[in-house]
């Protein structure tokens, strides 16, 4: 159940509790964020933190999704429907799936039912992709990520942790599933005949909120293992509201060729600090070799495809 609050922006699902997590030990906080019902929602407003020389709010660092992963777009803690392991294979390790009322709400925060407002034909396609996920009899039933394809928008945000770097006029996202260079200088989008896995992004700041217009999507990436998708016509307006150690992503997806109406996706995320464990998911960084300095993390290169010969061979072999 999703209840928009009085200003219609802040995500306040019934099972969620807004909490300050820094009071918890790091390992406990991490487990809480991924698997329990505790998140912090950041409203849009003024930026009170540090700024960079060009005036941008300084939001650099490694960030990660608060809740679950890409297994299920609209029921993030629900596992993948049809999972032969009956929910014991939810992401990292065995875990019983709780009743729906105790799980995190859908990432679709509008409409209120938490579902992507697919046109009937598109709903049928999504159901077809999902029904064939565990026994893919056609190449298109294999999730593109299994070939190391870029995760696309928005899935890259609830896959592994990712780094944000900032430069004058640029916000750079470095994902496991590719890179997004968000230009803030007002330049136009690429010509619309150019279609990209991670799309083409143009941004600007409104107080604490990075607003990004996303176009040129090749629509090959999916929103999760549950098969939700957009078309090449999709237009996405993302709003990343940053607070201290947390941000909340709210994005409106518009695509009249696939959906009956625009819908809103809400994803809470948190900053990874030196207190967070190296868990192979949120925090894949390594300790920098910096004798005499306080310990700090750095990211090694993230290159998937070359190490993934199995999947690559599958594609090259040309399944029927």
């Amino acid at each position, binding site marked *: 159940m999703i209840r928009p609050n009085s200003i219609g922006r802040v995500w306040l699902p019934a099972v969620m509790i807004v909490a300050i997590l820094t009071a918890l030990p790091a390992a406990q906080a991490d487990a809480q964020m991924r698997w329990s019902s505790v998140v912090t929602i950041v409203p849009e407003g003024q930026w009170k933190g540090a700024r960079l*020389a060009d005036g941008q709010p300084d939001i650099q660092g490694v960030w990660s999704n608060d809740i679950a992963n890409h297994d299920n777009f609209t029921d993030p803690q629900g596992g993948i429907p049809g999972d032969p392991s009956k929910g014991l294979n939810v992401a990292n390790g065995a875990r019983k799936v709780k009743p729906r009322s105790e799980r995190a709400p859908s990432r679709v925060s509008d409409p209120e039912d938490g579902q992507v407002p697919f*046109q009937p*034909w*598109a709903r049928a*396609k999504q159901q077809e*992709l999902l029904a064939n996920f565990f026994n893919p009899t056609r*190449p*298109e039933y*294999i999730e*593109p990520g299994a*070939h*190391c*394809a*870029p995760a696309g928008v928005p899935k890259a945000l609830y896959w592994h942790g990712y780094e944000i*770097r900032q*430069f*004058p006029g*640029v916000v*750079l996202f*470095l994902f496991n599933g*590719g*890179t997004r*260079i968000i*230009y803030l200088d007002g*330049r136009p989008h*690429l010509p619309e005949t*150019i279609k*990209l*896995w*991670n799309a083409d992004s143009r941004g600007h700041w409104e107080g604490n909120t990075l607003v990004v217009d996303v176009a040129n999507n*090749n*629509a*090959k990436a999916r929103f999760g293992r549950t098969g939700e*998708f957009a*078309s*090449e016509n999709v237009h996405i307006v993302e709003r990343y509201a940053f607070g201290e150690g947390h941000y909340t992503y709210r994005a409106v997806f518009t695509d009249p060729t696939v959906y009956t109406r625009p819908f809103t996706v809400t994803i809470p995320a948190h900053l990874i600090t030196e207190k967070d464990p190296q868990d192979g998911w949120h925090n894949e960084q*390594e300790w*920098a*070799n*910096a*004798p005499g300095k306080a310990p700090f993390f*750095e*990211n*090694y*290169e*993230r*290159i998937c*495809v*070359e190490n993934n010969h199995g999947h*690559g061979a599958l*594609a*090259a072999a040309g*399944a029927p």
Partner: protein
Amino acid sequence: MKACRIIGRGGVGGAAFVLVAALAANVGCADAVAKPNQRLDVPRTKEGRPDLTGIWQSISTADFDLEPHSTRKDAPPGAGVVEGDVIPYKPESLKKKQENFAARDKLDPRLQCFTLGVPRDNYYPEPFQILQRPRDLTLIYEFGNSVRTIHTNATLHPEGDNPEFWLGDSRGHWEGDTLVVDVTDFTDKTWLDRSGNFHSDALHVIERWRFLDKDHIEYSATLEDSKVFTRPWKLSVVLYRLKDRNIQLIENYCYTLDYDRYYPLPKEGP
């Protein structure tokens, strides 16, 4: 300033120019452009370092063949970018290079869109973008969208049982206006060009990045690999700032091209 001999002067269209020649083959005469103690007129960061931010590309034939070569069906001719012209292979390594060359149309890792590695990514004929902060430089190579970080925060290479990196582990520091980068911890899976020039996992690269003027960088790399070469050797190319209208890096995840036909946009109907 390196020693360069002025061998002539002249004027073209009213603009004076200076012809210079190196006294030794390994001396870059662009040094002659900058007088001692004269700050190059190049973009600079708040801290006063040269600011390499921009989109760059080599227009040399280095990626086709680092060594001097005549024209052939799969390469335009080139005078080579190796100091002394010849890469000093050990005899058994030269044999492997020749085998690579013979099968280059099948074995070159670029054909699978694998990350090209260092230094090859820097002279591959496709743009790359440099974004710079005091603590590091981020290099995004359009080919395959490989992302490389050159750390300039006084950190050291990882210790212990290191992972191997396609792009190596890069630690840089400034020597005056020159960025000097020490690169180690390589895989042995990348090539140095399309002609089968190669290295082992013992490769160690020392790069020097130096502005010639605000739109040109002299890039040089010294390659050391005791398993493959008899001695360290050096290559050098010029990087050009791309100034085309609307220039922008466009994602090129070329490794998806072998399978992206399997991901057509779902369409209405059966």
